Structure formats: C-alpha cells, structure tokens
C-alpha cells in the first residue's frame, strides 16, 4: 500500500488499537508492561514516549499497540474501574485511547500542503504576529507552572500516604511482637483476662 491515503488510513487504524498509558514508574521496563497488559490480550508493540522537555521526575508514558480495537477498549474500561498497579503501589496506572498526535512517526495527512510566508516589520499584521508569539511563550510558562504545582501536590500526597502507612505498619508490628514474645500471655494472666484469639 503505497498511496498516502492508504498509509494514513492504516495509521489511523493502528491508532485506534493503541492504548496510551501514563503514570508509569520510571523503573518499569517494556517486559513489565508487556506481561501486565497481556492479561487483556495480545500486545503487539510497546513504545515508551521519551520525555525531552520536562524534568526527569515526571512519570513515564507509553503507547501500547494491541491486536484489535476491542482489546484496547477492554483495557481502557478495566483500568477505569479498578486501580491497576504496575511495579509497586499504590499509584495506579491510567489508560486511555491513543490519539494521532501521540505518534511522532505519523504519516502526513494526505491532501494538506504546507505553505508559508514571511512577514516583514512593515507588514500591517506584523504586530499581531508578534503578539501571538508572545502569547505562545506565556502559555508555555503557564503550563510549566501548573505542572510544577501538580507535581508538588502529588508529592505531598505520597508523603502523606507514606506516613500513614508507616505508622500503621509500626502498630501492627508492635502488636505482632507483643503477641509473639508472650507479653500478652503474661499480662493476661496477671489481669485474669483470657486473651481472645483474634
């Protein structure tokens, strides 16, 4: 299939079959993803999306191509209903349908030609163009600010959960050790209470 239309159609079909995952830990490798998602069907291809522009602390994302649309749908709906953990918990992995812009090797949409022109400073619309450029920069700054804020919140949440978890664990640990080394028995006989078995 050589014609651009056919190529593009095939590409679109591939997009439909692909699932986009994010919130993946950086430690997760391709095999892990493959094993994980093969519960839902046949995984044909996995591509991690390289993150070039943001700081390295953000979670990974991946594009997973499945065998057919139905499998992709199943994954998306399953992950929407139950939190799915990969390589650690409790931060769940999110899935959604892939979109055309997620693929950087996509073929050009047939029928679109690229043309451009230069605007000189004396052009009436030059100012507008400059304003648009400034707007772009501002938006980019806004976006990165929001991102920073989001990462901060996520970190807070994680810290909070961690503390709760550690505290709980310590409690259980203490209970365990107390039962194990007989303290409970001693105390029970001292106070004449029968220790319950639970």
């Amino acid at each position, binding site marked *: 299939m050589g014609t651009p239309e056919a190529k593009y159609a095939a590409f679109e079909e591939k997009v439909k079959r692909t699932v986009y995952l994010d919130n993946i830990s950086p430690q997760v490798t391709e095999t892990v993803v493959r094993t994980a998602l093969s519960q839902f069907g046949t995984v044909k291809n996995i591509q991690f999306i390289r*993150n070039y522009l943001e700081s390295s602390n953000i979670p990974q994302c991946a594009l997973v191509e499945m065998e057919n649309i139905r499998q992709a749908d199943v994954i998306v709906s399953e992950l929407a209903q139950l939190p799915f953990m990969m*390589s650690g918990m409790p931060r769940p992995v999110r899935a959604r349908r892939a979109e055309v812009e997620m693929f950087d090797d996509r073929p050009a949409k047939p029928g679109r030609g690229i043309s451009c022109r*230069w605007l000189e400073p004396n052009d009436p619309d030059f100012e507008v163009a400059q304003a648009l450029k400034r707007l772009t920069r501002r938006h980019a700054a806004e976006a990165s600010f929001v991102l920073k804020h989001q990462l901060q919140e996520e970190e807070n949440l994680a810290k909070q959960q961690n503390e709760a978890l550690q505290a709980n664990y310590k409690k259980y640990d203490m209970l365990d050790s107390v039962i194990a080394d007989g303290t409970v028995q001693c105390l029970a006989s001292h106070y004449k209470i029968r220790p319950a078995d639970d």
Partner: protein
Amino acid sequence: MVGLEETNMEDDYFNWGKKGGVGEEERVQFYESFTLEGMEYSLYDCVHLYRSGCRETDIGKLVEIYDTEDHEKKIKVVWFFRPSDIHNFLGDWKPRRNEILLASGVGQGLSNVNPLEAIVQKCNVVCASKDERNPQPSEEELRMATYIFSHNFDVGKRQILENFPDEISGIKVECFFNKRNNQQLFRLPKFQTNLRDPAGPSNVPSKLELDEATASPVKNKLKESMVGPGEQGCASNEMLRLKPALDGNGTQSARISHGQDKERHKVRFVDQPHISASDCVAFTKGDASRKKPDGVAFTKGDASRKKPDGVAFTKGDASRKKPDIDKRSWFKQPSWEVKLQRAQDAGHLVLLDNLDPSYASSEVEALVWKAFREKVEAKMIQYSTFSTPQYGKAFVIFKSRNTAERVISELNSRCLVPENWRPVIGIRRSLKGPDKTARFVGHLSIAKIRLQSQREAMRKAVSTSHCSQPNSIEYDMALEWCLQQEKSDACWKTLYEKQVEEIREARRAIRNL
C-alpha cells in the same frame, strides 16, 4: 390534573376495583384492580410511571396496590431497567432494539412505593426468556410488544443475569413471566367504564390496581434510594393496554384497541400525547412497532473513564532533515535519540513552537525547507499527558550551528507565518535525559519488608502488576491517587480552555487572514 382525592368529581376518573386482603393492623386495604381514567389496571400489569423532570418514563410492574388509612393510594412497583439506566454495568451485553431488563436480587433499585397518580399508562412488555417457566411468546406478540425482556439485572450484585431466580422481591417469578392462556385478561378498551374483565379475578390472586400517574413518582433506581416493602405478585408481561395518556387534557383519545387472542393480548401502542401535568412527559411510542430503547448509551468505559482531557503538547523534536534516501542506505543511521543528543551538544538543535499539533514530522521538514531553504531533520514531539493541546512543538536538527543561530534570529526578528496563521517560534531548549533512578512519587514501600523480601516470592510480587481489589489498604490509597489525578486533569482542562480563548482573542486582530 393531579391526584384527585375527591373522586366524586369524575366518576370515571378513578375507582377501586376488586378488593384484596387487608394489611396488618387493618390500616391498609389492598386491591387487585382499579380503574383510572377509564383504563383498568390489574395487579401485575406493567405500567409507565412518570418521573418529574424526565422526558422518559420509567417502566415498572405493579406488585401491590393499596389504600392507606389516610386514603392515599399507593402502588408498589418492581422496576424494569432500560439499558441506558445501567450503562455502567452493561459490559459486553448488547441489548436488542427495545429490550429492557427486569430488576432482581436484593438492594436499591429493585422496587418502590409510589403514589398511584404516578402511573401514566399501561405498557406492553413481553418476556422473551427461554426459561421453562415462561410461556413462550409467539412471533406476533414479540413483534407487537413495546418492550421485551429476557434478562434480569441483579441490583445487589450489579450484574446482568440470564437465569431468573425463583422469586423477585418476595413474589414468585412466574408472576413476572408472560401470563398463561387461562390467565389472560380481556379488557375492552372502554373509556368510561369500570368494567372488569370477568377473567380478572382468576388471573391474579390479589391484584392491586393503580391508576394514573400524574404525580411524579419517587423512583428508585440505582442512583436513588428507597426500597419498597416486600411485595407480592408476579409481574408477568401481561398484556398491557395502552391507555391513552390523557389525564386531563382529553387531547388524545388514542385508544388502543387490543385484539384479544387466545394466547396473549397484544397491545398496540399509539402515539401518546402529553400527560397533562405541568411538566409533561412526552413519550411517544411508535405505533405498533416497538419503541427503540432510548439511549442505549452504554459506553465501554467512556462515561466512567477518568480520562484526562488531552493535554496535548506535541513537542516538536528538533527536526532533523534526513539525508537523501539512497545515501541513507549506505550506512546505518544512528537512532533518533543519539542524533538528538549529538545535535544538542553541537548546538544544532532548535525547538520550534506554536506549530499546528496535527503536523507530521515530514510536514515540519517541508516547512523549514520552504522558509529557510535548509534541509533539516525534524520530529514532532509526541503528545503526552503534559502537552498543551493547542501547541505543536518539534525538534529540528540543523546542519550546523550557524544555521541554527541564523534561523533563530530570523524567526525572532521577522515572523514566519504558515497558512494557518500561527507564527513559528524558534528557541533553544536543552534536552532532559531519561533518568531511571528518578524518584517516582507515589510508590510506597515499607522499609522493613524491603529488607526481608529478598525472597524470590516477594520480589516477584512487586515486579508484576495487578488490579487492586476494594478490600485492601492500597485500594483506598489508590483511590486517593485517582482523586488527585482527576483534580489535576480538571486544572489542566481549565487552563487550556482559557488559553484557547486567549489565542482566539488575539487572532481577531488579524486583518489579512
């Protein structure tokens, strides 16, 4: 025309029919039938009930009809679900055109007590289940039915089941199936009459009749609350008479004439007018042909998906111009990442911003060629969770540092404007490398356990993936994360909407578009 307590007003508006038993403490009088606006209803009839604020009526089967001490007429109904009502739980099940589901099991959504005035009219529901207790309907009946059902939805387990339990809501399931021949009710569609079908009493042991539905019932669906008391009565898909939805406007005298046949009564539905009540329920049924199930809107997870709205940044990668094809085959090309890194080090890398996000890498290259007469390699940055949807970015790798510098300065001083009027920006951005040791926020571990878990089993457990079940601590924590994600998504969405608006504003000033 809402709830007439004074039945003297119109003698034919409402009348009780056959009495049933008496409730406990003799405070409640059960009935087996009643007439409402000339239509007679019996126990186990299927009816439409009006829900205020909704254009659609709900369908239920009358399982109890009674009159309280304060002379409030009440009915108890077991509900039928439309596929759209339970679209979250449909899964793979694809309903037929006019298929509904009977409620079963125990839980919210099974049944409700409503004022009798909530009845709009009868409904012809036929049971098409292959259950042996169900008298099988004929082809004709199936065709004439307004709705059919062959599955039931367990409200407790929230599942669609094909097998019918022995009883639903305390009533034997046979009452919910189609009526048998000898139980057929024959009612003439008389307008002003209380004529009861002589066969009536034999049909159902104690019928409660409910009439009319102008008041809005409190419907108990899965979303709402309220479970009716235990009822009796089997709801079978008996023949339903379509009562012209007249209440009070008298507009429509669409009488449904139902033909009686030995096996079942078919009910023909005619288009119904509004119910008079102030908020009219305007449901129309197709004539004799069945009504389509409304909004079979079960979406596989669409509604339930907590998807972020596209944060689409298509960051463009420094576009590198590919060398000619034939040359390329002579020596192996290093991978894109390697190229990127090299270009970065050598100062050849430029990031183009404010591109149309739908550009393909080749188009970016074409653009650069047209503008600068430079062959470059370009790659659009993939759209991921953190990309802005309205801005496309691409990395471009130029041949030399000077070219890169020149391009940037030109883009700054003049304005390169492609046909979509988005002036291109060129900047230098440094690449961030992948960092495997980066801390991933959100994965917790217990220090002690980590030390102990040198054992194979534990290691395996962590390295695989699983779906968390609602009975563990991690589930709660995972839900907290989900909540956090949703919040972030909402933030992004608002931001992008605002940005789109700002762009639009700015573009309004363009004169020569």
